[in-house]
């Protein structure tokens, strides 16, 4: 390829579209999407008939709110009543080319999704928006620390990188140590992983005696799959350990790809791909919209996946939308400040105080001596809730334990209205490690205790 000057945007025309035009574009797509869903998906037709809405009723973007919500529970029920895929799908199963499942971190029945040839190409296209915005280019060598299983994870990012012309290193079932060695040996310039696993890889490198910032060539770490990708302390730690910039992305199996990404300006949040999605932020209880700067639940409408129309899907993700002008990159897609802040149902009530796992992680990650942690909720004497943060120290930091125990307890209490946190030391290697979505909160309060 001859030298050329690339645009800083993957799709300058749409990514910098004035807001008014962006809204008009969304309306045109919405009208056609609703008409297709109504015509092709018995599930959607039933839903809309029950709500007394027809495609002709969608005359403005405000009319989006006339459409009923889709929920995961309805989707699961639909699948259970009409196995395997329910009657959401708009095309015969034999026209699909991919089958994937949700990760099942919520412990419920996984959702099954199908994609057509076009859907699969679109899924990669959305990742292109994000990768390009974070400065990944054809000359890059991209390592995927990803198991390539039925969870959709980085599948789309893999095909995105092939499209960009980058050199792709798929690691499949390699061990963590072998992954580290290949990253160094092949001179990978980009690593894709969950935030937890990016830290795990860096820890493994230290155990192998590899100084990543000095011996590897990684300049970008693209993370996804956990809210931690936008927690400043976690991100800073990843950047320090790797010696490259860490950028957050977020997606979900239900849409098949990412809907938000962090650009190179890193404005403290992630841009929404607004020419392909409508992202509403609503009060999770009332369902009413909240304004810029207020926390609420993400409700997504996707213009991409043709096989399974997704309109007003309640994600349970907690977000805070701010105007695009918060960033200087020129994109007109609004921003989720701090990325995905957690799950609406993540919040735990402990002795009258709200506790969010993300807030706990933000503090724990400030402690360089802590390698891994777990939040344990128990009920003592059948009445008193206790919260314990179990921490595993980085090898060689044992002497600092008493100081860490005291400071960590104090700092956690300080941001939780004085709530007392127990801080306990776990043995080396005792706490679980995660490659996909980390599950660090264990709530045993409703489980019977051994006598």
């Amino acid at each position, binding site marked *: 390829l001859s030298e050329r000057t690339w645009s800083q945007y993957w*799709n300058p*025309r749409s990514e910098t*579209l004035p807001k008014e035009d962006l809204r008009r*574009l969304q309306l045109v797509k919405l009208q056609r999407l609703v008409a297709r869903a109504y015509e092709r998906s018995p599930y959607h037709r039933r839903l809309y008939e029950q709500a007394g809405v027809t495609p002709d009723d969608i005359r403005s973007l405000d009319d989006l709110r006339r459409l009923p919500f889709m929920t995961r529970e309805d989707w699961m029920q639909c699948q259970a009543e009409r196995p395997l895929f329910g009657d959401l799908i708009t095309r015969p199963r034999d026209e699909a080319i991919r089958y994937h499942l949700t990760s099942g971190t919520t412990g419920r029945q996984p959702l099954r999704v199908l994609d*057509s*040839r*076009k859907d699969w*190409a*679109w899924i990669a296209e959305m990742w292109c928006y994000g990768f390009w915005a974070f400065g990944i280019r054809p000359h890059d060598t991209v390592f995927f620390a990803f198991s390539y299983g039925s969870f959709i994870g980085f599948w789309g990012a893999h095909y995105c990188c092939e499209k960009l012309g980058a050199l792709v290193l798929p690691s499949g079932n390699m061990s963590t140590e072998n992954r580290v060695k290949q990253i160094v040996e092949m001179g990978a310039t980009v690593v894709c992983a969950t935030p937890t696993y990016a830290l795990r890889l860096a820890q493994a490198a230290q155990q192998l005696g590899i100084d990543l910032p000095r011996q590897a060539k990684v300049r970008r770490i693209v993370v996804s799959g956990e809210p931690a990708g936008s927690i400043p302390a976690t991100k800073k730690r990843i950047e320090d350990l790797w010696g490259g910039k860490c950028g957050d992305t977020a997606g979900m199996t239900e849409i098949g790809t990412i809907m938000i990404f962090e650009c190179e300006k890193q404005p403290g949040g992630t841009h929404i791909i607004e020419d392909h999605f409508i992202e509403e932020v609503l009060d999770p209880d009332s369902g009413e919209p909240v304004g810029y700067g207020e926390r609420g639940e993400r409700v997504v409408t996707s213009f991409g996946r043709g096989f399974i129309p997704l309109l007003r899907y309640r994600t349970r993700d907690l977000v805070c939308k701010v105007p695009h002008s918060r960033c200087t990159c020129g994109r007109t897609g609004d921003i989720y400040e701090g990325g995905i802040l957690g799950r609406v149902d993540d919040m735990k009530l402990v002795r009258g105080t709200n506790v969010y796992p993300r807030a706990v992680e933000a503090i724990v990650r400030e402690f360089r001596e802590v390698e891994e942690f777990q939040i344990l909720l128990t009920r003592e004497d059948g009445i008193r809730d206790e919260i314990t943060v179990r921490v595993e120290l980085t090898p060689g930091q044992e002497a600092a334990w008493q100081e860490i125990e005291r400071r960590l307890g104090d700092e956690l209490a300080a941001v939780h209205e004085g709530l007392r946190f127990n801080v306990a030391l776990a043995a080396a290697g005792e706490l679980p490690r995660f490659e996909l979505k980390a599950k660090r909160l264990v709530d045993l309060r409703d489980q019977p205790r051994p006598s």
Partner: protein
Amino acid sequence: MTPRHEPRPPQDLLGRPLAPEDRELLELYARLHALAARKDLPPAVVMNCRQALVMLWNAAVDLGLMYEEPEID
């Protein structure tokens, strides 16, 4: 030959006139769509045309030139 689902629009989805490269992209899409729909061509031609078509679909949709599903499989 004209594809079934994407007659060439004189304007993009926002009603703006098409740039020359927009027209070229849509013409290519239409020609490829027609080729992919033919029944007399070998799998090597049809399947590769379908694969190429969905890539062009992405480009055209990204530019706001069209939105409908390609309906090729």
